[in-house]
């Protein structure tokens, strides 16, 4: 995938995560910010993110792959999405 598209995807996910999960206006997350391990995103809330990704990118991510580790940063989320986009 071209860099432009990749960055657009990352921004899309970053914006969703910020809007959905970050309540504190002082917190700014980046592509690398640990989301679940740092406590910004509760693992219970991942289902919304999963549904968002599946609807937005027209993919199906198996529950076994939607792990806290795979969802722990914007970068890792986009890497996961790309695995299923290419299939």
């Amino acid at each position: 995938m071209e860099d432009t598209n990749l960055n657009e995807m990352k921004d899309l996910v970053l914006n969703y995560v910020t809007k959905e999960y970050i309540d504190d206006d002082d917190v700014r997350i980046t592509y690398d910010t640990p989301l679940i391990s740092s406590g910004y995103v509760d693992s219970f809330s991942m289902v919304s993110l999963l549904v968002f990704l599946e609807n937005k990118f027209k993919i199906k991510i198996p529950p076994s792959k939607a792990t806290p580790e795979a969802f722990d940063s914007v970068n890792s989320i986009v890497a996961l999405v790309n695995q299923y986009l290419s299939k």
Partner: protein
Amino acid sequence: MSYADKTRDLYRSQLAEIHNAGIFKEERFIHSSQSADIEVEFPSGSDLKKVINMCSNNYLGLSSHPEVIKAAHEGLEKRGYGMSSVRFICGTQDIHRELENRVTEFLGTEDTILFPSCMDANAGVFEAVLTSEDIMISDRLVHASIIDGMRLCSAQHDTFKHSSMEHLEEKLQLHADKRLKLVITDGVFSMDGDTAKLDEMVKLCEKYEAMLLVDDSHATGFIGKTGRGTHEYCNVFGKIDIITTTFGKALGGASGGCVSGRKEIVDMCRQKARPYLFSNTIAPVIVSGVLKVFDILSSSTERRDKLEKNAAWWRAGLTDAGFILKEGNTPIVPVMLFNAKLSQDFSRDLYNEGIYAIGFFFPVVPNGQARIRTQISAGHELHHLEKALDAFIKVGKKYGILGLTRDQIVEKYGM
């Protein structure tokens, strides 16, 4: 030897990490019964110190009430000390069912089942009534016992931003295809002392055909004009599908809890809830004490009225003194300090002034939200509150935080 040196070393290093992180929890030994005035041994081995307790869940001051103690004594004499059984084998006495009926009447529900604690009620209820076809949608600040209960349940789970009805509605729309939907909230949130918007939640649940579960542990007995709980306060009495609550706080403070709500849900818990099926029945002495508590609450609202008055006085006093409080109108009054170390230093200095109040910080509360959580009781008299307020002001002046904004405190002490 199975407990090898490397095992011991592993645990020791983990405990050292907890110590080094400054979050090691230490018990303080109280040498008196629970009340506004207590005698505390802290640190361990030190002389006893008389302090005013500003951090107990003894909201109605019933933990050491003479009538409750007398009823417990009578229960002990008439029904014995223990039952040595779970409920469904040979652990149900007439008084267990009597208490379930009293709770049902008090909360305005259809039926009730007792659990050894509300922690157990929350651990058992979800798994008993939901399956993988269903969805649980919880407020992001619900109590840890609800989170543990949801983890034990195969239903999917999602969350909504704390008290955001717009976000909850989005989630109800998102999960419209699920077989059963259960919205989950605390009635009063234990760390912030704010109240769930149950009136709006009931409307949303009716609109989207979802059930509503409320953990009212920090409300039963004193929130609402007759103390029935958050559902009474929000004018949705009789409209909550599932209420979980405890006898371990306002209702005598010993132990025990329950699930109260729709009959079929209670019946399902009686068949399937594992903490009910595999844990001992509540001891007769406690059941007898809680029954007396309901007698007291049903005869007068005097205690909850006094609690409301005390809490309003305390909140106004702290506000006038220049402290930053979490907004709310419950007996839980968090004094915001934001910085973790400041919260610990503040608590220690309060203790030296004869005031027992604990500082909370991450991970118990969100990072940068450290606080002293004060909890008011009907057992407090005005002189208790005046002394506590004087101490808060003295310590507040010491740290130079009175009248400062959040940003100014953070600038001074850091997050």
